[in-house]
């Protein structure tokens, strides 16, 4: 059996997604096929390690959560703190849409910069500028990335991709208005960046604390297109913005 299929079977088995019959067959394979048994142990080792990393990351995140002291003398203080926190949380929810920082916070939650494209390597001079831009992007050196991407000619075969990454670098550098203009331009072009640019254009408006009406107008085309890749995220954002 193909190794990739075996890996998929191992993952289904370990996550408890197999029927009892599939499980029985799987366990029979494990005990009769030594090679498969070894593959199982190796892949389980890797998955255990990834799970351990998740556990550690979650635990560290919780540990960083400020908690009130739990000693007896401070119980009243803890209770009071919790009440104050609850009131503040309520106020922040009610006035969320009116607070500019609320929108920025929301934009941060929704926004994800793409991974830098580091694998292209043809050795030409203009590709060396491309690589410089992508490496700078990877290291979050936004200004260097923007400067490198600006040097790439319009006839570069990856010009559209370069512009897309430049727009993200502009977001990273907090130049939201320029990023928005660039995403809007890309959203008008045919090709693979159209939907992503449309979505990121909305997020750049959020970063700029744009009024609700304008946000609604830019969200509507995505909300009205159930096949849009970001349709479900747009629905969630609409809910979060209460528009």
């Amino acid at each position: 059996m193909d190794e990739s299929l075996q890996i998929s079977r191992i993952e289904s088995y370990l996550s408890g997604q197999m029927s009892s019959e599939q499980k029985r067959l799987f366990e029979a394979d494990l005990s009769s096929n030594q090679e498969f048994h070894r593959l199982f142990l190796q892949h389980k080792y890797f998955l255990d390690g990834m799970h351990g990393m998740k556990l550690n990351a979650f635990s560290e995140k919780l540990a960083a959560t400020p908690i009130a002291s739990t000693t007896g003398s401070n119980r009243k203080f803890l209770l009071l703190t919790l009440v104050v926190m609850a009131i503040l949380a309520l106020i922040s929810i009610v006035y969320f849409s009116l607070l500019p920082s609320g929108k920025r916070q929301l934009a941060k939650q929704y926004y994800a910069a793409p991974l830098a494209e580091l694998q292209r390597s043809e050795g030409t001079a203009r590709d060396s500028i491309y690589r410089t831009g992508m490496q700078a992007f990877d290291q979050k050196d936004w200004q260097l990335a923007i400067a490198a991407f600006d040097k790439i000619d319009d006839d570069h075969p990856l010009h559209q991709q370069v512009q897309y990454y430049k727009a993200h670098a502009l977001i990273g550098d907090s130049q939201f208005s320029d990023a928005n203009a660039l995403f809007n331009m890309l959203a008008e072009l045919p090709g693979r960046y159209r939907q992503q640019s449309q979505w990121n254009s909305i997020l750049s408006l959020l970063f700029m604390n744009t009024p609700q009406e304008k946000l609604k107008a830019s969200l509507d085309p995505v909300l009205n297109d159930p096949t849009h890749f970001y349709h479900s995220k747009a629905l969630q954002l609409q809910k979060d913005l209460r528009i």
Partner: protein
Amino acid sequence: MDSNAFERLKYGSEHEIASLYQAYLSSFVKYIGKEFRCPPSKAEEIYPEAFSILYFNIKDEKLTTPLKSTLQTYLNSTGWNLYHRRNLDKYQRDKIESDPSELLPQVKNMVEEAFMQQERAHHVRELLDSIGEPCKTLLYQVYFNETSYKELALNMDIPEPTLRKRKFDCLGKLRRLIDERKLEL
């Protein structure tokens, strides 16, 4: 109330989880302090890990309803096993007999499994550093961040089938490293 908390822990937002995290803390600290006669700070130290272990066991459906006890008891018992395993030497461990995990052996297994996973995490992190890019990022995205192939394909500008094939190639490299380093499976 407790089944409601169970659902909130399993499916709830980050905010709901944070509020449960805060809600169970006080009894946890009191229980661990009483069992091991330790200061609150020692109990607070292990609380995030105990909570995380319980959270992942619920999320991964290893711990399912109906529960044999309250979530607070599960959490306290997780903390007990963690403290017992980590903070006591063998002599002290043998001396303490009132092991609540006799009531909840499942919790002891959960803690043991978490220890094993954390040890493996250390080695897997080194393996990922060794295989380098682009495998490291790809495997992190798929297995740590649980990013979908569709989203990854869009972000990395690589067709989905290529991405899947690349992932299996990377896993192959990783297995070869596991063999080379003779890690105990």
